């Protein structure tokens, strides 16, 4: 059953130089209890996609299209109704654990806040549940009293608290926006394991944003690759890894450091992609990747390439995709 | 705030560009217009005023505004408009020199503290902290009490409490510049601290200082008015806005309008200068510019 279905999502940001198209025709589906990886270079619009789903886009942004969650279009919902969903059915874990927690409130109170807000629990009951949640995410009492303040915890511990907050009201969808980027390598693995564990346990769907392909490989069943505000390739994680049909995907895979050695045998990797991402105000009419693409041809320039199905559930937006399997 | 200013940005200010953008900010335009008007009025009053400023004409005393006396007359029959115009000269002169003293001594002190660090910086900054414990007006009252009341002494008093403001600002802004690559490069190239200060530091904080001077100028106008009101500033019969308000207060039941115009003049001037300062800050501060 489809839990989240995004169709033709466009996000435009008002800037002094004019409206900048940040996202163009983004679409994907996520089944209940499923997992979807979202990869792409920095600035390609991953966080914007997540914020659009949460309804937390910056004020100057305008979103069009459809974001259907549990049967209703979030973009058409009034703010009040969105507030009832956020934190209750939809939850999010942010990139920066150091700043995501309020420095003047105790971690116990911050975890309990959602319970009190959505479920109307009393202080005592909410705090008792908060202690259990903190226990579950690996910030157990008595070593970590719920009366601690965020500055008394390390980055990894704080991220665990943020995860506890997100899990508090049993959401159906958890969006994790680069949850480990700011952490050291050991905490990274632990936090990802924790996320996968709790997602499986609670049967919640996971939308995992990252630029680490190994993370996608290990944690998600399907994935999408984004470039300059567009989805360029989508499919089951195994299919996409096996084919890497879009030239950008191949470039990305090659640019990804060491972690992929298990997947990609050494010596068979492409060079890092030369060139820069076109900025949202000056995107070309044709394929956005044309300027950096080694396979670009004359027909790539006049219009955006339409999406082309390669296999059931695997599609690519490219006129000359790699059809052979990943060199192995 | 000490801005994060890159090399060259302030070294080659695109004045044309500033002007184009400045025109689109209402506050900046109003501030500039009011300030220009004030200066124009002051300059005109040097050569012409509707009536002679100090000539008394008792038969027409305490008149309400009329065609002959646009803003009425005071208790000696002197024309209020003429006195306001001459008062503008007084306010501008006192404030200009006072801010000049403050910046002239404060900027070198702050630059020195940033360039030398160590004990010099300690002394300068501790002295700064200390002056903050004293209400500025109290210091001014004390200084004029020592030196005696008068325009020159109020200039000194206001100037003195402007010194720490500029010293603090200059030090803060310079310190971050001293860590920047282009300054480090200049040091590696063997340039002396004084030369670096003159060539790299000061040009880069110039816009910051200009903004602060505008704001301090507005504060100085207020301070001068306050001192004159207390009888410590410009002495009669020389016209000053603060003194006019003091005299008007005793006549409040007879001629309330006398208490209106000088106050409006002070308020308008300060408002104009503050708007100008805010507008300049928005235009010149590259940090804000990037946010737009």
């Amino acid at each position, binding site marked *: 059953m489809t839990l989240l279905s995004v169709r033709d999502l466009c996000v435009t940001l008002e800037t002094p130089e004019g409206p900048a198209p940040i996202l163009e025709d983004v679409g994907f589906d996520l089944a209940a209890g499923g997992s979807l990886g979202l990869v792409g270079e920095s600035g390609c619009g991953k966080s914007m996609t997540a914020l659009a789903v949460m309804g937390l886009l910056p004020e100057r942004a305008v979103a069009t299209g459809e974001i259907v969650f549990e049967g209703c279009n979030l973009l058409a919902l009034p703010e009040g109704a969105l507030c009832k969903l*956020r934190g*209750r059915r939809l939850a999010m874990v942010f990139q920066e654990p150091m700043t995501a927690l309020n420095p003047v409130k105790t971690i116990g109170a911050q975890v309990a*806040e959602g319970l009190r807000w959505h479920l109307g629990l009393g202080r005592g009951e909410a705090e008792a549940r908060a202690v259990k949640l903190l226990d579950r995410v690996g910030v157990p009492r008595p070593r970590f009293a719920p009366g601690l303040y965020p500055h008394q*915890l390390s980055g990894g511990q704080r991220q665990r608290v943020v995860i506890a*907050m997100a899990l508090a009201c049993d959401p159906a969808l958890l969006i994790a926006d680069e949850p480990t980027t700011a952490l050291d390598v050991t905490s990274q693995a632990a936090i990802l394991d924790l996320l996968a564990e709790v997602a499986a346990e609670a049967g919640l769907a996971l939308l995992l944003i990252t630029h680490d392909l190994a993370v996608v490989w290990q944690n998600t069943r399907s994935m999408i690759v984004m470039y300059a505000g567009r989805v360029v390739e989508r499919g089951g994680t195994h299919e996409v890894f096996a084919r890497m049909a879009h030239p950008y995907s191949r470039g990305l895979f090659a640019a990804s450091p060491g972690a992929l050695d298990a997947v990609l045998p050494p010596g068979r990797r492409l060079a890092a992609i030369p060139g820069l991402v076109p900025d949202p105000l000056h995107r070309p009419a044709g394929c956005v990747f044309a300027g950096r693409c080694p396979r670009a041809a004359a027909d790539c320039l006049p219009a955006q390439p339409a999406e082309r199905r390669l296999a059931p559930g695997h599609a690519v937006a490219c006129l000359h995709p790699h059809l052979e399997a990943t060199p192995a | 705030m000490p801005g994060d200013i890159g090399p060259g940005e302030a070294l080659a200010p695109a004045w044309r560009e500033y002007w184009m953008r400045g025109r689109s900010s209402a506050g900046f335009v109003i501030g500039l217009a009011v300030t220009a008007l004030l200066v124009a009025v002051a300059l005109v009053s040097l050569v012409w005023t509707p009536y002679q400023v100090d000539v008394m004409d008792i038969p027409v005393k305490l008149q309400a505004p009329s065609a002959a006396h646009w803003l009425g007359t005071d208790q000696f029959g002197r024309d209020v408009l003429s006195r306001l115009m001459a008062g503008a000269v007084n306010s501008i002169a006192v404030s200009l020199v006072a801010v000049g003293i403050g910046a002239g001594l404060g900027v070198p002190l702050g630059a020195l503290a940033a360039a030398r660090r160590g004990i010099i910086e300690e002394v300068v900054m501790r002295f700064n902290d200390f002056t*903050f414990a004293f209400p500025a*007006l109290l210091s001014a009252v004390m200084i004029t009490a020592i030196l005696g009341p008068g325009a020159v002494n109020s200039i000194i008093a206001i100037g003195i409490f402007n010194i720490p403001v500029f010293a603090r600002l200059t030090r803060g802004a310079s310190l971050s510049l001293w860590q920047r690559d282009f300054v480090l490069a200049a040091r590696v190239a063997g340039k002396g601290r004084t030369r670096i200060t003159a060539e790299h530091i000061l040009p880069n904080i110039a816009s910051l200082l200009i903004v602060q001077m505008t704001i301090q100028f507005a504060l100085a106008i*207020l301070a001068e008015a306050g001192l004159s009101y207390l009888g410590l500033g410009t002495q009669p019969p020389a016209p000053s806005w603060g003194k006019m308000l003091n005299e008007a*207060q005793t006549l409040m039941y007879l001629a309330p309008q006398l208490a209106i115009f000088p106050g409006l003049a002070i308020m308008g001037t300060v408002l104009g200068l*503050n708007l100008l300062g805010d507008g300049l800050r928005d235009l010149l501060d590259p940090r804000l510019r990037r946010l737009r």
Partner: protein
Amino acid sequence: MAVFLLQRLAAFIVTLLVASLVVFLVMEVLPGDPAALMLGVSARPDTLAALRSEMGLDLPAAQRYLLWLGGLVSGDLGTSYTYGVPVWELVRERIGLSLPLALIAICLSTLIAIPLGVLAAARHNKPADVGVMGFTQLGVAVPNFWFAILLILVFAVHWQVLPAGGFAGWDAGFWPALKTLLLPAVALALPQAAILARVTRSSVLETLGEDYVRTARAKGLTRRAALWRHALRNALIPVVTIMGLQFSFLLAGTIIIENVFYLPGLGRLIFQAIAQRDLIVVKDLVILLAASVVAVNFIVDLLYAVLDPRLRGGGHAG
């Protein structure tokens, strides 16, 4: 925390010592012989000399400084030359006016400024925001003594509902006394409120952009709830700093406002003492004022610790 407090206390004492030295030196420069001033121009030289030695004026400067300092510490502020009464008594009489006046003004400006600043931030770039910013521009530009005169014109001359000046004294009852302090307090509060409202606005705007506010919104809190529960307390930290710094401006304001309203308070006392070369009163009052400014900023430091747990100490857990 204890270390922090001790450090602040030491800085407090050093600042006051330096202040006392500066004030003493400044007063040394002040022209006019207090003894001659007390006796008048026709005094005989030997009477003058006798008075000078009785007042301790013939002692070396260093000794006089130490004597004065010792007096301050032991609570003996000396005797006023012009009033002939202990300075302490003068202060006690007038502090009953100046302290309530300052407190009312601070309360007024806080009560006006913080809601206005929060409102402006919550309605950023909307009409309410523009209105509040306009008010603050005016409030900063209006000279407080002129605003006081306007208040007198409206409330005392035109409507005649409040007195134009003077102080009824607390003996006259609470309300009559309060009525005489109302206009002065409003005049003192206005420019402070304008500055404070601006600081509050920009501080709240800044905190509203913080990650934890977004986290709170992601939890489902409405914009308003996120502002009140998460942004406000963090935003108040810089606001409190400014309030501490403003205290010094408030004292300066009292000098001028007490003159506008003919209020017998500390501000007017110091003003008159300077005019009359009543050195001992000036010295004592300046130190008292400086001490109160430093003390207020000390209290602000304590308030920080209440608002911000990061300053309360307590290291890493685990």
